[in-house]
């Protein structure tokens, strides 16, 4: 009789320990899943802003590369696109002075950094970097390929 009572109490206690352990597990999994899968308002705002800057940069950079520009070559004015001008400036540094004011035109739209990369050895590393940072970038194919990127940090109203 006494043994039965003791066994009952032992059973009750082990069940109670199990219950407490299960509740503890539930709380731990709840917190862990909230941390792992939970999207806070700030995170969504951040990714929305990132998407906004990325898509805006992509469209604007694409337009810039197709933008018609007039460049004086050997005393003759020639029409070309923004992409051609970038290629030309990589071949001959004297055309940097023509390219710079064109790049400056982005300043009225954004707080941004414009980057060109023509070194074949570092282009792949730069592409990886731009993909990671979700920076808008284009590859201008030519004999000496150029990678162009527009990194926007803010919009101007």
């Amino acid at each position, binding site marked *: 009789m006494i043994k039965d009572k003791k066994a009952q109490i032992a059973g009750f206690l082990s069940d109670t320990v199990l219950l407490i352990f299960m509740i503890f597990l*539930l709380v731990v999994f709840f917190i862990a899943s909230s941390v792992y899968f939970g999207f806070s308002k700030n995170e969504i705002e951040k990714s929305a802003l990132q*998407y906004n800057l990325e898509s805006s940069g992509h*469209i604007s950079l*694409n337009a810039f590369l*197709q933008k018609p520009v007039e460049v004086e070559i050997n005393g003759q004015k020639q029409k070309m696109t923004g992409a051609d001008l970038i290629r030309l400036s990589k071949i001959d540094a004297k055309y940097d002075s023509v390219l710079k004011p064109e790049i400056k035109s982005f300043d009225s739209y954004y707080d941004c950094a414009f980057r060109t990369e023509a070194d074949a050895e570092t282009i792949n590393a730069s592409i990886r970097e731009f993909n990671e940072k979700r920076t808008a970038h284009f590859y201008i194919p030519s004999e000496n390929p150029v990678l162009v990127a527009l990194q926007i940090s803010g919009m101007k109203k």
Partner: protein
Amino acid sequence: MMNRTNKKAQMGYGMEWLYKMVIIVVIAGGIVFVVLSHYSKQVDVRDLEASIISRKLAECIAPNGIFKEFSNSSVIECIPVDERNIYINITLGNDCLPIGDDFLLKLCQTMEQKMKVAKYPSCNYANYMIIKDGKAEKLGIFIAINKIESNL
């Protein structure tokens, strides 16, 4: 004596089962609570929605950055929106095209002045450089989304 012991034993077993039932209810209820609390979570996705609409509009007005069309009908055809819950203002050069409920614009301006609004809309602004008639033009797209019930 025998009967009394049996009754007590029966009561004991009954209590034990009741206790086990409580444990099962607590664990099952806990699982249901955790799942429901995750699935019924309100997530405000209006900022993302505005960013996506903005990009879609920019691509409709200027595919690949080259100007194509800019009119009320072309914009509505490009992306049908619920005009009671959204305000879109597109500016291209000196042209301006407002669509939807302009009260949302006033709410956004109020929020910009750091005034607290209880049920606030999502306000999104984006600039795009596009090519129109061989020249670079600034395309500005402002989007305000209300949709408070489904997001807040």
